[in-house]
């Protein structure tokens, strides 16, 4: 269940003439504050208010919506982000996932961590100061 976390597909819909990959590229380029491993594990994570998450029947998956764009999430990414609700830390998210998916592989915590680091770099989520 909790493998393949990095493969959530990203599909941008851009208005008018804005290049399809520009927004993502720029978000990526402007992220220079990577987390050192573990530093954020006990901080409360919340979804960046720029994004809205919902299930899209036509896409058959959860998506992150933002101004004029959409990111498709694979089931694993969606299960993690559902728990990024402004009240959970990374440790709490992992504990919840363990409970919900007892058969999850041993390296679940590492996968979740790698995904959350990625999500913060992409500015999908943020942590309490």
């Amino acid at each position, binding site marked *: 269940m909790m493998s393949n976390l990095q493969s959530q597909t990203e599909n941008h819909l851009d208005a008018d003439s804005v290049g399809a990959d520009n927004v993502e590229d*720029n*978000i990526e380029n*402007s992220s220079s504050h990577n987390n050192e491993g573990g530093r954020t594990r006990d901080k409360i994570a919340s979804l960046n208010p720029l994004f809205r998450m919902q299930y899209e029947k036509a896409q058959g998956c959860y998506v992150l919506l*933002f101004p*004029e764009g*959409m990111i498709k999430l694979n089931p694993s990414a969606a299960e993690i982000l559902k728990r990024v609700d402004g009240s959970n830390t990374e440790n709490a998210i992992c504990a919840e996932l363990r409970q919900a998916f007892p058969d999850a592989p041993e390296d679940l915590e590492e996968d979740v961590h790698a995904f959350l680091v990625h999500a913060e770099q992409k500015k999908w989520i943020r942590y309490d100061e």
Partner: protein
Amino acid sequence: MTNNTDVDLQTDVPNTITPPLWLLAEITYQCPLHCPYCSNPVNMEETFNELSTEHWERVLREAREMGAVQLGFSGGEPLLRKDLEHLVAYARALGFYTNLITSGIGMTEKRIAKLKEAGLDHIQLSFQAANAEVNDLIGNKRHSFEQKLKIAKLVKQYNYPMVLNFCITAQNIHEIEDVMALSEQLNADFVELATVQYYGWAYENRDHLLPTSQQLQEAEAAVNRYRTQQNGKGPTFIFVSPDYYESRPKACMNGWGTTFLTVTPDGSALPCHSAKILPLRFPNVKERSLHDIWHQDFSFNHFRGDSWMPSPCRDCDEKDKDFGGCRCQAYLLTGDMYKTDPVCSKSPDHHLMKGITDKAGTAPSKALQYRKVEKPIPILEVSATS
């Protein structure tokens, strides 16, 4: 399958037509500004016969049922429709991500609060320049800059994500650093530095608007410098360079009839907001369902797939990447909508681009035209009561 006999000519319609993910609802062409690069049709007759609230409700419902998720309320100036708040609430309840694309003229604190209550997700605010003098001149409206500053503050105060859109032309390209500084000061989340593309009124006024190659390079360098200094903070800047200086065409609309659906004020359904200029008959939502239009209509099927493609697109290994470029651009520049977008260096018409860009910065061949006033002045009513 359809009453449209033309459909027999279609041999290449893909078996799986993807749903329209993006609905652009151009709810009115009326606008308090008169920008000479407006992408609205030059033919202002299309300004009249606006769809009713009930029509729009049906359009939103049908688009959502088909899988559309992003919705842009645009125009003209969408704030001029008194049912905007109602339509936003209606769309939000259907699950759309709702974007308001506005000049800010006509916005008030009361309305911005009501729109928030209605569930509006995001506001994109346009500026014509980073100072009052140029901004108000381009839009041909006094005090519009002042109003826009006020609205930008309200957008943030009411916790909307804020995208600023600056249309970049020869008139303001040298001030792009001021534009970026202003955007940062206003706490924008994203900023589109959109060098104008030449459709609608912008095509008419191209001689005046098109920056030179050198201006463009300097602007792009300034943006890159600014981005480096940002150090991950402040707005995300998106620089859009004009097609005219490119050697490969854009993947216009992500491919015709694959992703985007525009409905114009009078109910015309288009695969892109410029398509009305093409010699095709486009359907109207008053007469047919969106599902029928998207899946069956001749115009929507016409440039789907690749069997319509001419040489060199037909044999090009990039045809799945750019889909032959923009049909409107091919039509405007060559008079033939079936040709390869002349932006492409492989196009036999590519020399046309150099002919145009070489003239950038020289004396224009005709006077600048502001987008005209839309409503006829009701003289008869005045004389009847006097």
